[in-house]
């Protein structure tokens, strides 16, 4: 029952969270650009695989991720 949220306005689309998510639940939004001109990260966990391991949040250079559990 864990999940993460993004502060999408701050996201720079660097993909570091996605690269490090052990469950590969994060991807880059190919559709949308945020106000900074970046394609932000999005979280998709239809199967509820997120363990709240916090790795994405630890690794995000821009402190965009909050982790809930």
């Amino acid at each position, binding site marked *: 029952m864990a999940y993460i949220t993004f502060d999408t306005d701050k996201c720079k689309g660097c993909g570091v969270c996605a690269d490090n998510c052990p469950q590969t639940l994060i991807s880059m939004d190919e559709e949308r650009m945020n106000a900074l*001109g970046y394609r932000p990260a999005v979280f998709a966990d239809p199967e509820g695989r997120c363990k709240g391991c916090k790795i994405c949040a630890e690794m995000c250079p821009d402190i965009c991720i909050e982790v809930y559990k």
Partner: protein
Amino acid sequence: MYYDVMMAGFGGQGILMIGDLLALTAMNEGRHTTWMPAYGVEMRGGTANCTVVISDKRIGSPITARPHSAVIMSKPALQKFAPRVRPGGVLVANASFMKPEDAGRDDLQSVFIPAVDLATELGNERTASMIALGAYIEKTGVVTLEDAVAALDSTLPEKRKKLLPINVAALERGRDFVRNGK
């Protein structure tokens, strides 16, 4: 004649490059010209802009607080610079990222061109600003498209010459958009 144009967008969109190309073309046509970038801000903001002035006479300031025209490729840039364009001036804006309303004024000769979409159609997203330049040249007639192509050709080093056709296509696509409204 005297023209000045402010060009602005995100970093990486090729803003400085199209400004440079415009100035070079003007020089080759025998005009006075200056190109002035907003330079190394000692900070990373992800924005880029430059000002090009073209004139028959010796040019004073290469910077202008109130440009006669603008080529705008990003929404933040539109919000920042659209208000500065002189009434009745020319605005070429990237409709892929913004709507005419975003300019906040309707006293300009505006061209909203979906440059990114058109570029993607051409097969290279990075030619969006070249498309915008084509549109600007067509709209203002400040230089000829032929001279712009020649200038571009002269600056491409041998091993990047293969990029010429797509960029020429982009310039023309911009021109055609203005001519045909699509």
